[in-house]
């Protein structure tokens, strides 16, 4: 079990962090999130061109970097901390699903993955676990139905659809009969859309037993990837309020000198330490110990999702009035944290899943 970063991972972290600080600092995030697509396509291209994030865990034979999930966790922690807008997380989810279906998927995976890994195609998956959705395959092989909420559903170039029967199909952005209705989202930095399918042409990626086992592992990996992002949101929230607590004066001394603030920050730090250890463990299990992955993934969602929201909430509240303003970034973290907490279903479902695995 490895819970500390390797020197390569430290380098990766530094590289992603400095890239994002330059290319997508907070002011740019605000500008992009209010733009037409909710993100800057140029940033997404550079992210993949220079850092190769979309293809990080894609096997080299499919055009990726062949990295591990522990590496991916390092990268997503940084994109989470920076509240990077855009389709990276959705695309990573799609690469995970396709990579895990590579054995079962045959040609479709081989043809689809390279473009996604290269960052030329943004992709997404729906419905994610814990989300509603009802898509069926008609006799002529087209799709019917709808998925109420899909990450980046309106701007992704490729949509992986999990049907009610558990098969996986790929739908092109321009496919006939595909409806994409943008949603209002609590998280202002990440778009979602409702997708409708009416005799929509789609390509079979995987089906039957092979699809089922590949998807099961893929969705555990998705849970770990999300937890890594949540860890980044948690860490950035805590860093922000710790820094502010040293500067902001009240009644003649910094607010961080008051026990009410200091002790709450100490508790938040305890959550960070534990969330960090859990994410490292789950990412290690993803790479090295597949038998532990289901439990580790459920643990990661059960603990990290909650911890992330609690820290983001308290970081906002401890800012005082300024944290309630639109112009301050606190609410962006708060809203991302709450949205992430329910992205893979109501929190109770993660606890139930974990209970089923360990009790």
């Amino acid at each position, binding site marked *: 079990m490895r819970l500390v970063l390797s020197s390569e991972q430290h380098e990766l972290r530094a590289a992603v962090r400095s890239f994002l600080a330059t290319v997508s600092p907070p002011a740019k995030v605000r500008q992009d999130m209010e733009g037409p697509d909710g993100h800057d396509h140029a940033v997404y291209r550079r992210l993949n061109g220079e850092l190769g994030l979309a293809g990080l865990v894609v096997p080299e034979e499919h055009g990726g970097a062949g990295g591990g999930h522990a590496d991916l966790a390092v990268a997503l922690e940084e994109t989470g901390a920076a509240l990077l807008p855009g389709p990276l997380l959705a695309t990573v989810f799609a690469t995970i699903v396709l990579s895990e279906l590579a054995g079962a998927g045959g040609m479709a995976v081989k043809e689809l993955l390279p473009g996604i890994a290269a960052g030329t195609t943004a992709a997404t998956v729906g419905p994610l676990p814990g989300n509603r959705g009802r898509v069926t395959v008609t006799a002529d092989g087209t799709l019917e139905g709808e998925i109420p909420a899909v990450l980046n559903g309106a701007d992704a170039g490729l949509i992986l659809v999990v049907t009610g029967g558990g098969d996986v199909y790929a739908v092109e952005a321009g496919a006939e009969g595909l409806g994409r209705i943008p949603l209002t989202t609590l998280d202002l930095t990440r778009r979602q859309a409702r997708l409708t399918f009416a005799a929509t042409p789609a390509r079979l990626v995987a089906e039957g037993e092979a699809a089922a086992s590949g998807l099961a592992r893929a969705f555990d990996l998705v849970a770990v990837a999300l937890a890594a992002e949540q860890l980044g949101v948690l860490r950035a929230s805590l860093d922000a309020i710790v820094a*502010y607590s040293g500067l902001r004066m009240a009644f003649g001394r910094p607010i961080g000198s008051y026990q009410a603030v200091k002790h709450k920050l100490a508790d938040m730090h305890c959550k960070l330490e534990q969330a960090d250890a859990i994410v490292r463990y789950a990412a290690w299990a993803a790479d090295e110990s597949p038998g532990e992955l289901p439990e580790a993934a459920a643990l990661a969602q059960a603990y990290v999702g909650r911890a992330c929201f609690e820290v983001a909430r308290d970081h906002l509240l401890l800012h005082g009035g300024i944290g309630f*303003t639109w112009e301050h970034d606190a609410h962006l973290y*708060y809203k991302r944290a*709450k949205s992430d907490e*329910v992205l893979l279903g*109501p929190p*109770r479902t993660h606890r139930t899943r974990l209970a089923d695995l360990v009790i």
Partner: protein
Amino acid sequence: MDLEEYQRRARTWLAANAPGARAEGASAEDGVVVAKDFMARLHDAGYSGITWPAEWGGQGLTQAEERAFAAEAAEVTLPTYIFSIGLGMCGPTLVDLGTPEQKARHIRRLLRGEDVWCQLFSEPGAGSDVASLQTRAVPTEDGGWVVNGQKVWTSVAQHADFGLLLTRTDVDVPKHKGLTMLIVDMRVPGVTVRPLRDMTGRAHFNEIFFDDVHIGPGNVVGEVNGGWASAVTTLLHERLSISSGVGMSGQRDNPASFESLRKIVDTTDPLVRDELVELHVRTRALALFNAKLSQETKAGIFPGARGSAAKLLLAELINFGADLAVSLAGPEAVAYEDGGGLAGAIALAPAMSLGGGTNEIMRNIVGDRVLNLPPEPRVDKKVPFKDLKVGTQS
């Protein structure tokens, strides 16, 4: 006229005159016109300023009549929101501390809805610690003042005719000793009112900028450099007007309330039921505590600082409820085509923990004034203001 008869007449009058619409969302001047018109009729009918001195335009009656009227008014919806700061805080401060000229000039107009008032205390660098404010007022030769600075979190300022403004007039003395309260005409040059967009995306409050604003003589409320005592008077009235309303309404319209949630979640799931019942327990616990405070108040036992406990609990309940609601409802609560009630609830949830004193300030009040615990050592009481660090100065 006995109290029952008084209350019966109030009910009759309200049934005939309450227009049944709040002016809270009314940014159009129409809403303000309706509100001002209603206030004039309320005053004509003798229900505005029930306990205020008759000399200045009030009714000169007792708390008993006020409570009787309030009991009836709680049953209807009155368009008096834009007057709430004037009636709850500014007016009572003038009644307590104003000069005869100030009272004569302002109070009747305030009670008749002719003037809207706002309160200008908080600044970006002075929230919980309002006495550390930096807005400067410098005396002029004519006995007036020139004001420069910025205020924030000001309700109804966009409609306001006058404001009660707390300024710093001496920086060489400790912070509580160099403050002066002034009446400012909000329509004069140099006053800029800018809506303050909050995390819900709407503008419930304003920022106010003062650039060389001239205030004429005769507008000091209380003493020069005695503004802290004046502010304490205003804050006392604020606290009374908040605590009397804490948790008393709004649950019906709240999408994150127990009543609303039980209609939309899967109540056959034992875990859902258990989380939902926790919300019910907390809601009932606070409602019963509030009801107890209210019964005690009617019996002549005033809640005092215990109202801060109720305010703290309400702030926590609102955060707990909105958080729970989104967690119960799941992904579709945060990404939606129509509705968005729960997303709105979670975005608004922090407000009650920040406005009217943070949770930390409430806990200090309960500890100091209800439990009589010893005070913390203070480092800001003896330092000249100019040597004190405030806000995020480095």
